[in-house]
């Protein structure tokens, strides 16, 4: 198939060129023609180069690293510098960082590359892609590499919550890199106004309701001027819902990604509370709340509290015209939050020496000092406990204590929802959560339907 197609396109260009060649005056035609041929040429040289790389034994090992950027700021430079510094430390390895857009785009690009037998050596992808990558047979287990480099002691320094999505079936496949959790942001001035202690957020569900009721402001006509709390429900409501589920018992899926537990009584209760905030207590807007507008609403003081990712810390810090606090998401039976963000993966169809080189880089990047610096640069949670013991991090947290909340919450955090056929399972739970939010289904119905749908999707894996 591929051959036919490329043959045809060659015929296309050649025939166009020949047609135009007999005319002396068709300037536009020839121009556009050479343009297209140029581009094809470039592509050819690209592949040629890559092949040459793979075949010739070289002194310097080059590895490609696909990375996404999901937070604001000039992070490309930070990454480039990282690669340069590494090259200075390891002159025989050269890392080529390739910015590949958002997480989704990076995943798409990686999948395409793997299918085209052109896999990168290293990529940062969502921690939840683990099972998809395994189903594609794209990545290698890191156990031996870890064993050779400190073993248990090394890997156990990473926060266990971050490792949950990186390990399955007794093997480790990913190394945490840029990771986040959900936290509660609150407006300290609004707290003071409402007679609440501005130094701490609501600690449990009852307080959440009580605080939100005090914080909600209406005008003379009963129209709300400021909401008590906003919890986003667009795009990926499952992530927020996971927080509620964890606070009320346990996570939504099994460790092997083959089973989900959506329709437990605890989850129904949790979803009921979420809905009650809007419908029973009138402290949150009804219907779907857009993920992207929630931070703006908070900054504009249209809401006094929001649930959002720790990755938003820098944005809110730069833009809020008032004092704000950060706290754990309120717990019920316990505190709880899902983790989010991306891990390093090393790919299968590349020579072993390159895998080894990629591993050197991963290890180097994860050193406590660098993990600390990366956290400060980005707002992500530093992935290792020892990172917080560095002077650098200690000084930062001292100056900006809000930054430590996400770390402290990690003790209660758990893996983000991740299963085989991830996309479809997300759709099942997201659609049904939204159906409940807009009042089309009761919490029982919604979670039961989501469960049935997910069971059907996961049936081939059980």
């Amino acid at each position, binding site marked *: 198939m591929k051959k036919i*197609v490329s043959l*045809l*396109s060659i*015929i*296309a260009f050649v*025939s*166009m060129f020949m*047609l135009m060649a007999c005319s002396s005056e068709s300037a536009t035609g020839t121009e556009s023609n050479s343009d297209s041929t140029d581009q094809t040429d470039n592509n050819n040289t690209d592949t040629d180069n890559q092949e040459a790389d793979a075949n010739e034994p070289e002194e310097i090992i080059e590895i490609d690293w696909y990375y996404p950027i999901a937070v604001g700021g000039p992070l490309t430079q930070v990454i480039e510098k990282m690669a340069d510094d590494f090259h200075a430390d390891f002159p025989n390895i050269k890392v080529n960082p390739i910015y590949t857009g958002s997480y*989704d785009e990076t995943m*798409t690009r990686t*999948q395409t590359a793997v299918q085209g037998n052109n896999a990168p050596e290293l990529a940062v992808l969502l921690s939840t892609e683990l099972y*998809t990558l395994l*189903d*594609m*047979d794209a990545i290698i287990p890191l156990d031996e590499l870890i064993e050779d480099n400190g073993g248990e002691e090394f890997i156990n320094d990473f926060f266990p919550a971050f490792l949950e999505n990186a390990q399955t079936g007794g093997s480790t496949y990913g190394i945490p890199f840029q990771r986040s959790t959900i936290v509660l942001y609150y407006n300290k001035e609004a707290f003071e106004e409402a007679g609440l202690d501005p130094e701490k957020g609501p600690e449990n569900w009852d307080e959440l309701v009580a605080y939100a009721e005090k914080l909600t402001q209406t005008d003379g*006509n009963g*129209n*709300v001027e400021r909401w008590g709390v906003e919890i986003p*429900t*667009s*795009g990926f409501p499952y992530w927020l819902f996971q927080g509620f589920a964890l606070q009320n018992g346990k996570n939504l899926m099994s460790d092997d990604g083959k089973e989900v537990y959506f329709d437990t009584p605890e989850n129904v209760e949790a979803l009921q509370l979420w809905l009650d905030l809007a419908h029973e207590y009138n402290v949150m*807007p*009804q*219907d*779907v*709340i*857009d993920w992207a*507008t929630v931070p703006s*609403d908070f900054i*504009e003081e*249209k809401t006094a509290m929001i649930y959002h990712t720790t990755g938003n810390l820098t944005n809110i810090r730069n833009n809020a015209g008032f004092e704000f606090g950060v706290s754990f998401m309120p717990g019920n039976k316990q505190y709880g939050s899902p983790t989010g963000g991306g891990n390093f993966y090393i790919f299968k169809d590349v020579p072993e020496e390159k895998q080894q080189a990629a591993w050197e880089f991963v290890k180097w990047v994860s050193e406590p000092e660098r993990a600390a610096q990366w956290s400060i640069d980005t707002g992500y949670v530093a992935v290792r406990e020892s990172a917080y013991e560095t002077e650098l991090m200690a000084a930062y947290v001292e100056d900006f204590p809000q930054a430590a909340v996400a770390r402290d919450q990690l003790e209660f955090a758990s893996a983000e929802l991740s299963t*085989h*056929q991830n*996309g*479809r399972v997300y*759709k099942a739970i*997201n*659609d*049904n959560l*939204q*159906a409940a*939010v*807009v009042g*089309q289904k009761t919490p029982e119905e919604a979670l039961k339907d989501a469960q049935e749908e997910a069971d059907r999707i996961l049936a*081939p*894996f059980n």
Partner: protein
Amino acid sequence: MRKKWRSNQLKVNIYAWLLLLPSFIFLFLFTYLPIFQTLSLSFYRADLSIAEPIFTGLENFRLLMEDKVFWKVMTNNAIFALGTIPLSVGIGLIMALMVNRAIRGIGWVRTFFFYPVVIPMIAIANIWLFIYTPSYGLINQVLGFLQLPDINWLGSTSTVMIAMIIMVVWKEAGFFMIFYLAGLQNISKELSESAKIDGASSLMIFRKITFPLLMPTTLFVLIIAVTNSFKLVDHLVIMTQGGPNNASNLLLYYIYETAFSYWDQGYAATLTVVLLVMMLVFAVWQFFGLDRKIHYS
């Protein structure tokens, strides 16, 4: 003599084919070939859980029948078409009638009606997202000013489709106005002038003369409108991602989700086949039914 004619004819054919070849190659690669590939892939199961596609016959089509989301998006496409087409075409006609006169400032009015056409859908989605935003969006600020309650336009299943339809009508009406304007300028003034002398009212002239003469334009516009109603999904990426609970999801967006979020290629192919069949049926109907009536010139 006959031989010469033959060789001449052969030459014409070769020339014709050489001239058509560049277009044909691209059409083959990106219109005909994909249609056949989609058709064949729709009989396979090809997703991330298996390494090689497995032939499953009509299994994908059976799944389609059971897929609630599929039926939801089909219904939505119908609502979207029924909501946008008559309104945008009707308003387009009214606009054309209004600006087809010589009064001061008419150029500006025409410009204002038409400019949404040249703005990319994705930019329009950004603008209208802000217009529809709860509490400080433009519409809700106006509602607030009138002491009316806030409406979560895009977040509620009951309003999200209406919001989309309003936006698309705003974008498309000016486009259709242009075609009607062209149509109106082809109608001779004398006919309506003499009718006016006979004492016919403006409304009467419109109903008996103008509108029937505009029929070919109306049919042409309807074709574009129907095709567009299947094509326009860019805004969903920005505004709702098909939510809440698929209330604003459309077939092409569902294909996009299935192919590029779930990587379920077999099913995406099946959905594409459905879209293709609908477009083809419409095309055939147009070629063999409508086209006769439009070819008036």
